[in-house]
């Protein structure tokens, strides 16, 4: 057992190292892009603040909340980014756009829609499952009854079968 643990620990650190290595490689590769698109990144970072918050508060492994909010938040950021690109992608333009309430409204409104979807779906789906579950239960029970009628109670396995001749 001890040996297995000893073997497992280096594997874990190796995997961790591999993951951080990937991140570093990705970061290094992205650096030129960030350097070139710095104004766009500034606008994006400001408008995507709800998604970052959602990512931070989402404790699930799959990060459904972050994805739900993030996707819509990203769509809401697009008008600001397009406007920036139309103005030549300068730091001034980026500051103008970042201080424009319209773009804030669009980006944050889209993020709010994501939050709303995430919060409203469970009661709706819960009710739907209630109805479906009842229907499926009845269907299976009917099929069971049909089998009992055709083959007798023995088919349930609860009654000992009569020995066959």
């Amino acid at each position, binding site marked *: 057992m001890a040996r297995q643990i000893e073997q497992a620990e280096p594997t874990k650190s190796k995997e961790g190292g591999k993951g951080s290595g990937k991140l570093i490689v990705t970061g290094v590769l992205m650096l030129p892009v960030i350097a070139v698109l710095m104004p766009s990144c500034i606008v994006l970072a400001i408008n995507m603040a709800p998604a970052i918050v959602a990512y931070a508060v989402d404790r699930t492994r799959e990060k459904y909340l972050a994805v739900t909010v993030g996707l819509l938040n990203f*769509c809401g950021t697009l008008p600001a980014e397009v406007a920036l690109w139309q103005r030549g992608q300068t730091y001034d333009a980026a500051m103008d756009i970042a201080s424009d309430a319209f773009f804030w409204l669009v980006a944050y409104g889209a993020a709010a829609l994501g939050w709303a979807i995430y919060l409203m779906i469970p009661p709706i789906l819960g009710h739907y499952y209630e109805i479906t579950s009842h229907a499926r239960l009845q269907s299976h029970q009917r099929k069971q009854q049909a089998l009992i009628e055709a083959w007798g109670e023995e088919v349930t396995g609860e009654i000992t079968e009569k020995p066959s001749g």
Partner: protein
Amino acid sequence: MSEQAHREQASAASCVLDGRYQIHPDKPLPPLDAPMASAVVATDLRDTGREMFALVCRSDLLPRIDIIPELSRLTRRPMITPVDAGTVDWPETGGRRLVIVFDRDFGERVCESSDKTITPVREDQLMRMVIKPLAPALREMSERYIAHRAIRADNLFYTDASRQAVIFGECVSAPPGLSQPVMYEPIDSAMARASGRGMGTTADDLYSFGAMLAFLLTGGETVAGMSDEEIVEAKIVRGSYSALIGQARVSLSIMEPLRGLLCDDVKERWTVTDVELWLGGRKLSPKQPMLPRRAARAIAFSGKEYWTKLSLSYAMGLRWSEASQLVASGVLERWVRRALSDDDTGEALEGVTETAAVLSDGEDRLTSKTLMVIGPDLPLRYKGVSARIDGLIDAFAIDFHDQDFRQTFLEMVKAKLPQIYLQSLSSARPDQVALMKTFDMINFFLDRPAMGNGLERALYESNPAWPCQSPLIQDQYVYEMDDLLPALERVVARGDPTQEIVDPHIAAFCAARLRSISERILRELGKHDDLATFRLGVLHLLAEVQRGSGTKRKCPALCQWLARSVQPIVDSYHNRAYRVRLAEEIGHASTKGDIHQLIFLLDSFEARNQDTEGFARAKKEHAGHARVIAWLQGGGLTSPENVQFRSQQAATLISATVSAIAIVTLTLIYVI
């Protein structure tokens, strides 16, 4: 015609043997009764003037039907010979009885009973009326290897009203020797129980003939008032001649055949040729009695003193517990060595005792083996049973319903006493190997107590013509396979039997008579706890009987009863719809009276296979549904965890979809 007349006519019609001999149960003939059969008037329908009578046999015994065809040819001999035999419907009981038909062309019985005394017959009368007329019958039977075994004074009839000659009475209505009083039997046969005297030989007949002559000469005075035990003791101690003639005056001429016929040594006994030579005028000096060797001093046993091995052996056989004590005491061996100076027997006794110690024989087995040593060639004795070795098999059948005898017989066979007895005989019997095999076979079946084997199978295998003793059909007198199904048909037609239609007796009877009854069928019949398999076994057995008996006769009533009884087999199919269809088809097929049709429907391999496979599939399917239901009822869909998880997935999906639409829309707006 009145109803009474109709009933009489119907009754009369049913009591006809072979379509020719009318039996009249309502017209008894007590003077012609036999010890084991009652006589009634019979009529030849082709010759109504012919006077006839019939003996109605007991349903638990087997008359000597095997010798009837042979005896029927002896019509000119001085003997009442059977004309025909067979079973007929018996209106009194509603069953069937075995009847034997005889011509009634003879006079009265010579004496009513051997227990009563009669007026002695003069020697010249005896010669003229009895010996001369009867000698040819003895010759004829001897040549045909038939032993009469019912030669006695009360079974002797005058030929006609003139009373000038006599004829032998019938000998077929009961097993051989069963009705013989002890005085007419040789010592070894007299020591045996009546049912265990065996087939016997001509030598036994000649002894009985001599005893009968002695009875007629003395009028029965010599043995009057004596018990069977006293008669046998007298024969052992004084010899049969002295015991039966006593103080009666007998001329030398008649003494010669009497001494010859009553000789206790069977090798020295007169033969039929000796009787014929004597009748032809040869005169020899009478044989002297050959009495057993007398001891120098007597041995005390059961309060009496015995001087010979033979008399002691007989007494020990009668008083078993005391005999066991005597054997265990060792006194017997010392007496044999010292008082009888018989070292051979002494050594044999010592050997038996030593072997018993090695084999851990029980005291009863040891006593029986001891009796074989001190009384070689006497009947096999064990506890209260005493029988000639071949007669033991007959006794097994005749006394089958005697619980005590049956138990003792089982112990004897289990202890292999018959085999030990056969090996201990002073001279080999011609049927020794056959008897060994028979007893081994009985042992074999006793070790297999299941239905179709066991005690009943041993009975029918060892007594190949014995009628079936099943309580269900005992009154039907079934001794041939052809009669079994009609008998069952009648039983069912009378009303629903309250018991199974096949019981251990019927199963064993069929297995012994029909070799086509397979082990598989017997295994099915052995499963009492599984009614469906048992009933299927019943069907298989009766179907084999129907096929094997060769009768084309159908049995609709039996089939309909079987159809009702096979419900457990129908119920053994799982598919309800098939059950209903099967029950309908069985009901239809049963009216045809063919048991094979029922088998065909009920024991179809294909149908059974389909049903089994279908049931297995259905069971699996049902279990699958049960699992889903349990999952659903356990909140498989509606549990908060599942709803939350699915909602998160759904929200992500919706978000992705809306986002995709928005991106496409924005792209279009900016591009256009």
